């Protein structure tokens, strides 16, 4: 018998836009949940029109909204709210990232919806959460990375803090939110009661400070960032190569000795500055300079193969396109081809979670705006005549943009 995806049967009412919230909903959809993405009447999720485009559809939008259903709806209309109340009765999860408190003013907040369905798990994702002096302030990824201490954890100690090369503040919050939803579902199964979850990008971003918080607490001070080399072990970090950069990790004495041989510098073994890890940490600048003088003459692939052959962990630092088109990517289903409405065949990343060794199939691309309005209303029990009236009254739509 074909095994189902684990979340088949789960219904998710999703009001989110942009990135963090849609990430949570996307992951639930990938694992089999039916996600009703409620989109603004006439325009939909703002990220449908964010650069870059293919055939007028934002490519970022399609990446994060696969496997979902789009319902275009006017939430200001009382009839629209009535439809949401019907959905809330049948849903297991509600996800929202409106500006602080807006969903309550719309009459769709947790207090209202839990009267209709006490088992609902209701998650709000925001920059700073539903409490504290910053709660009402606007926040984008870069600000969450800054305020949380994430950016200050990266980069040279003397240089600027450095945000990650993509929107980590959003996706890490979406991923943590996914875990929080599943925890609350586990608890709701036991108790019969749902709950409200309050997730903030700043709180999740503070994960980057997990060790420095302890440093500060124990010593009354802490260095925020340590640059490209490990604080406790040397050599352990990023080194320049002739054609880019490579990572080298010699975290035991055996590996250090092997490294000296593999890079053609047996004399390092007898250098008192490099006698053991404590000495190498104390002379880290000298060590990095010496190793770099050797690596900068070699190509990344040469460094990697010499060191791996000597059992020293090492890797070329690959560019995006090298990783994306690697044999490993192509032999492990990193991506799948999917027929995306309005665009055609596109290559999308597979979900990284595998169940019983199988990659999760992408069942459909991202929906056009309102593509599923009629279908979802029919499933909810509305008659075709009722649905026609909702369309005629401008309560629901199917703009198909």
């Amino acid at each position, binding site marked *: 018998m074909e095994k189902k995806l*684990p979340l088949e049967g789960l219904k998710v009412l999703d009001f989110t836009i942009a990135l963090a919230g849609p990430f949570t909903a996307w992951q639930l959809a990938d*694992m089999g949940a039916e996600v009703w993405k409620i989109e603004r009447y006439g325009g939909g999720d703002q990220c449908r029109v964010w650069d*870059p485009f293919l055939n007028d559809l934002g490519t*970022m939008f399609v*990446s994060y909204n696969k496997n979902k259903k789009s319902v275009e709806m006017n939430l200001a209309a009382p009839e629209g709210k009535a439809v949401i109340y019907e959905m809330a009765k049948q849903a297991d999860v509600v996800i929202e990232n409106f500006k602080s408190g807006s969903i309550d003013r719309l009459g769709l907040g947790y207090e209202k919806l839990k009267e209709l369905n006490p088992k609902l798990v209701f998650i709000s994702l925001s920059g*700073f959460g539903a409490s*504290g*002096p910053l709660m009402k302030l*606007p*926040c*984008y990824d*870069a*600000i969450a990375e*800054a305020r949380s*201490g994430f*950016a*200050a954890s*990266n*980069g040279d100690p003397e240089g*600027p*803090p450095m945000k990650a090369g*993509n929107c*980590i503040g959003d*996706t890490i919050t979406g991923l*943590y939110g*996914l*875990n929080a939803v599943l*925890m609350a579902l*586990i*608890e709701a199964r036991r108790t019969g009661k749902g709950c*409200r*979850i309050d*997730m903030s990008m*700043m*709180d999740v971003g*503070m*994960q*980057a400070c*997990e060790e420095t918080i*302890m*440093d500060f607490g124990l010593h009354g001070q*802490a260095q925020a960032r340590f640059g490209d080399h490990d604080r*406790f072990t040397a050599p352990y970090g*990023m080194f320049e190569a002739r054609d880019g950069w490579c990572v080298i*990790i010699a975290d035991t004495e055996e590996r250090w000795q092997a490294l000296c041989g593999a890079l053609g510098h047996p004399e390092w073994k007898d250098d008192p500055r490099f006698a053991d890890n404590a000495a190498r940490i104390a002379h880290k600048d000298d060590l990095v300079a010496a190793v770099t003088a050797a690596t900068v003459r070699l190509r990344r692939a040469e460094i990697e193969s010499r060191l791996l052959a000597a059992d020293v*962990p090492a*890797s070329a*630092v690959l560019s*995006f396109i090298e990783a*994306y088109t690697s044999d*490993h990517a192509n032999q*492990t289903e*990193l991506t799948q081809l999917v027929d995306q409405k309005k665009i055609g065949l596109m290559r999308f990343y*597979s*979900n*990284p*979670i*595998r*169940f*019983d060794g199988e990659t999760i199939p992408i069942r459909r691309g991202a929906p056009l705006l309102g593509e599923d309005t009629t279908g979802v209303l029919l499933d909810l029990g509305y008659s075709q005549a009722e649905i026609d009236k909702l369309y005629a009254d401008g309560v629901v739509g199917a703009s198909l943009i």
Partner: protein
Amino acid sequence: MKPLASLKILDLTDGNPYPGSLFADYGAEVLKIEPPGRGDSIRRRGAAANGAEGPYAPYYNRGKKSMTLDLSRSAGQEVLRRLVPGFDMLVANAPEARLAELGLGYARLKELNPKLVYGVLTPFGEEGPWKDLPDYDLLVMARTGLLEKTGMPDKPTRIGPPLAYYYGAWHLTAGMMAAWLDAQESGRGRKVSVSSWQAICSVDDTYVQGLQGLNTLPKRIGNGFPTTNPTDTFQCKNGWFALSIGSDAQWLAFAAGAGRTDWGEGTVYAHDPDRSMKHYFGELDGQLRDYFRTITIEEADRICQEAMVPGGPCNTVRELMDDAQVAARRMILEAEDPVLGRHKQLGRPAKFLDETEDDAEAPAPAPALGAHTEQVLARLGAGDREIADLRRQGVV
């Protein structure tokens, strides 16, 4: 609320505490299975060379239990198999093939417990040409493309925290919880596996899109942003400040708050796309750098807050210690440890708002190596004599 209080998890991970920590932080019983003598290598993170435990073990192992068990010996493997029926999940950061060599493969364990959820976290997956590469977060990051794209144009910058381990672990825990929910209905568990490399690759939000939509490859641009500007980190008199303008309205509000009519309505900077694409790089960006050098981060923060513009200081841990937002969110907690004494730990970011709000509660202490060995063996029904035998043989 401790939403996972009903879950029991066998944690075989070594050097990667994140899956177990997520479960333990929210109430699950997480039993660490550690090699006798040395224990999980995470215990030595940051330790002095003489072999004592490092300072971070009380955080990494908080709320968990510890049992020593030598899984390289058949008697140890047998004890683990006896534990399996009493647990909901097993999690390891080793490929299943290596566990199968120990008689602990999924096929064998699900016979003992059909509902078992069997979680496997690997750096690069269980197949493909990179599957046997060494397991280090930095090495995984090196092969994703994200490390290469982080930093200023002149060179990549290492991301300080172990990002690939976070993403890999948290995808795995999510998959395991989904599989557990299904197992309660279907009676059948699953093997759930995640490659940390794939997890990082798949959160990419601009690289593939740029390739598909513009036929261009990503550039390394520091804290900047290619399209919506100003978005960057600026040096103030006393520290670094991040500004992230997302619309004309935000920009005009910022210009007004800064008292800069030369940036406001009627100037070439007022509206997009001209501001971001024609007049930002090499022009407005320089003016902003000069401007921020004349003010403090506190002034910059006040201007942004009053104008309701996304901006904020690049806090370090020193600022976070006294931050009113951090305090309100209870993101730094006091914890007790027999060796360290009273100390500070990171709080729990998932806030479950119900009548039993308890996220300010101190984390449960971390166990000494093997602290729960006897208790767990006794729960299995092992008598004093059997426990003494296992101990004498060095199995526990």
